[in-house]
């Protein structure tokens, strides 16, 4: 019997199996996150630009509202969330813009990997940038507005709120980059979709910082969590259709 050598192509990461194992999936996700972070660590453009931007937004609000002590206490949480939303939107625009250059998105799509891993990777790396920005913004608010923001429950709601916002943002950015006016299209698409989570997060933050008890903000808190869960599902199910050529 002839025993001819059969050469099989085996990628170092995957078997030629259609469904990768969980370990392989997370290795892909980790590679994408690491790629984004190391690009940023070398260029440092995004973080520094976002830092300057959020300082500017905070100052513009301070001057525009001409804040005295009593108004400050009422509006500062709203201003804080507006600053988060604006800087995350800018960050989102940037993360996918990098992929459009030199056709690197096409490269990732051609690789034998599960496409949702691209989404999860891009989402986590964007979320890391958003958290870094929030770590910068929160002490700055403490400095300018004199309100103490360092309660663990408040920080939790900031993390959960920006989780949902970044999640939907990542999904919609992959839509917006396909249009001709992508920088404008992202806020048009994203703001109405994210309105419920922003409203709920602001309500929660206000209640927590004014020392309300759980019963007074449990509704808004649950809405934030439900929103996060719904959009994890929607994003995983629909990303495949958005990204394919």
């Amino acid at each position, binding site marked *: 019997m002839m025993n001819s050598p059969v050469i099989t192509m085996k990628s170092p990461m995957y078997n030629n199996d259609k469904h990768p194992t969980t370990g392989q999936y997370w290795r892909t996700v980790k590679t994408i996150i690491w790629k984004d972070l190391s690009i940023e660590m070398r260029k440092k453009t995004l973080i520094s630009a976002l830092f300057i931007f959020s300082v500017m937004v905070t100052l513009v609000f301070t001057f525009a509202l001409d804040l005295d002590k009593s108004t400050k206490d009422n509006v500062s949480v709203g201003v804080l969330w507006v600053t988060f939303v604006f800087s995350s939107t800018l960050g989102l625009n940037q993360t996918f813009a990098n992929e459009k250059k030199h056709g690197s998105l096409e490269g990732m799509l051609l690789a034998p990997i599960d496409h949702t891993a691209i989404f999860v990777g891009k989402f986590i790396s964007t979320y890391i940038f958003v958290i870094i920005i929030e770590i910068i913004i929160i002490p700055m608010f403490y400095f300018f507005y004199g309100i103490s923001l360092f309660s663990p429950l408040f920080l939790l709601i900031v993390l959960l709120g920006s989780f949902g916002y970044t999640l939907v943002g990542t999904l919609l950015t992959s839509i917006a980059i*396909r*249009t001709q006016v992508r920088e404008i299209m992202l806020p048009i698409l994203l703001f109405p979709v994210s309105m*419920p989570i922003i409203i709920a997060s602001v309500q929660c933050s206000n209640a927590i910082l004014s020392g309300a008890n759980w019963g007074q903000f449990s509704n808004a808190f649950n809405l934030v969590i439900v929103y996060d869960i719904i959009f994890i599902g929607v994003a995983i199910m629909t990303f495949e259709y958005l990204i394919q050529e």
Partner: protein
Amino acid sequence: MLRSNPRLKLMTVSSLILIVLSMYMVLIYAPREVIMGEIQRIFYYHVSSGWIAALAFLVTLITSIMFLATQNERHDHIAISSAEIGVIFTTMNIVSGSVWARPVWNTWWTWDPRLTTATIMWLLYIAYLFLHAGLEDHDRRRHITAVYGIVAFISVPLTFMAIRIWRTIHPVVIGSADPDAEGQFDMTARMTTTLLFTVSTFTVLYFTILWHRVRIQSLFEYMSKLQHQMYND
């Protein structure tokens, strides 16, 4: 390719007749409400346009899902047409509500949960129409707008439920009412008949407009295919 359709003509004429009849029902047949007076008659068109908006967005959701499942272009044509009609009827709903609120609530607008969620819904579908206009490549556009049509629908049940879960000043005429609601009233038998009649009229009108709009969309896509062929030859 598309000839005039006798069934569509029949529907157009009958929705015209139904609208005239519904005007008679709303303005003359329905009794005058005791406290609010004539302004209460807006209610019939307000509820009907709100119902059509929700129905239209539901149709967009279903056809978007069906498009992603079957890749049939026709579903995409229905989805975009229905969303467009839904935006128009939401606008009618908001404007008529505002006109009613001026004398009853003594303000054109208030940031009540129902009004907020309705505004969000309206903005979402305007964004949907923008997205549809902003994408050039037809094939890609169909997939992307279908996904956004699914994402946007989350606002519709939220709007519908808003007057039922949160404390709000918006009246709930059908079902149990919030004690905070202002402009609440109980419907008499004639009012119920009138409401049912206007809702059915608007439903017929919706399907008539949808049919016309889907035909326009198919013609439009056919035309751009011809254009594409012309430039490639």
